[in-house]
């Protein structure tokens, strides 16, 4: 169990539910980034495939393994998918120099429709200015039920977010997040390490819940993303459902949303004389 100081806060968890991601800038120390970068360039090997316990995947000398063993990274993992998640897969995403076309928008596998969710880390081991990419994400897209590249016709959205960052930046996203690699117009190869993890425990209050009842949660869960258009209310309902699941309170609401549906007048007999 990681020290409590490394766990996510309730506000961070609410942001993850509303936006589908959390971003940690300048998070991984330089020496780890340099070693991981070298390992990515030469090949990252694993012990076991999908379904292996994460802690068994990388040996002590693995630079990438060392990144994900850092207590503050373990705190993120534990907060979202528990102490002993399963390794699903990883990929070293490479964008060659002078690549002028962006990757098509896509979501990764969304074949599991349960409320439980996987997480994916996007780890940037080197500086990534806009002319180098990096990965573009669409905040708030994680509840959308689409099949991988079915969204490839889209190109731009209001509120799309290109991850332009310094070395050592880490994103963690819900597995439903829409994303695409961006063009790399530099003469340097761009790397991004992706890691998908599956929970093995009920995702119930796994984070630091000391601030569980903080007043700001309702506002976070009510955030709009400008590309939603008329669908923002539907997305708020999706968030309420996931938040109820995460905190184990089936009566939670951010206002009078699901509560309205749970008012069941048809079950009350007419007692008027």
């Amino acid at each position, binding site marked *: 169990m990681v020290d409590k100081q490394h766990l996510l806060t309730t506000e961070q968890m609410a942001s993850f539910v509303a936006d589908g991601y959390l971003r940690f800038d300048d998070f991984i120390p330089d020496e780890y980034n340099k070693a991981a970068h070298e390992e990515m360039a030469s090949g990252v090997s694993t012990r076991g495939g999908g379904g292996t316990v994460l802690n068994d995947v990388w040996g002590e000398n693995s630079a990438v393994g060392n990144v994900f063993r850092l207590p503050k990274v373990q705190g993120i993992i534990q907060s979202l998918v528990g102490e002993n998640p399963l390794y699903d897969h990883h990929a070293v995403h490479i964008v060659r120099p002078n690549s*002028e076309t962006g990757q098509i928008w896509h979501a990764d596998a969304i074949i599991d429709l349960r409320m439980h969710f996987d997480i994916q880390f996007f780890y940037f081991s080197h500086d990534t200015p806009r002319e180098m990419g990096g990965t573009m994400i669409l905040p708030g897209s994680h509840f*959308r039920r689409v099949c991988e590249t079915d969204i490839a016709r889209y*190109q731009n959205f209001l509120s*799309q977010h290109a991850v332009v960052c310094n070395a050592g930046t880490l994103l963690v996203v819900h597995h439903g997040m829409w994303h695409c690699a961006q063009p790399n117009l530099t003469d340097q190869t761009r790397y991004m390490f992706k890691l998908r993890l599956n929970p093995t425990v009920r995702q119930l209050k796994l984070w630091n819940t000391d601030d569980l009842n903080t007043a700001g949660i309702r506002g976070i869960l009510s955030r709009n993303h400008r590309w939603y258009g008329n*669908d923002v209310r539907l997305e708020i309902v*999706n968030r309420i459902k996931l938040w109820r699941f995460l905190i184990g309170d089936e009566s939670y609401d951010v206002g009078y949303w699901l509560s309205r549906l749970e008012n069941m007048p048809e079950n009350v007999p007419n007692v008027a004389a």
Partner: protein
Amino acid sequence: MVELRQQLLVLHLHTPDLNSHVVAWAMYDGTGKKRYTTGDSDAPPYNSVVEAMQDGWRVIQFPQQFPAFPGMEYHTSYLRFEYILEKMEEI
């Protein structure tokens, strides 16, 4: 003889109203002069379909509207109000 090629502009709107604002957009160029790609602009080329029409774009597809299937009322998926417009350009 003038040869024409199709330019396509795909606009996704806030509501089905053609005056409502654009929330997503894409362009495809049949002349071969330009290759549009993901994330290539931060602002839409027009604020609405009507604004694009006023600049000579012809609407060639309206989004159809269907009631949600029972049980699917709160599921979100693709962008619903997608208008496809064209312009013909000489090559």
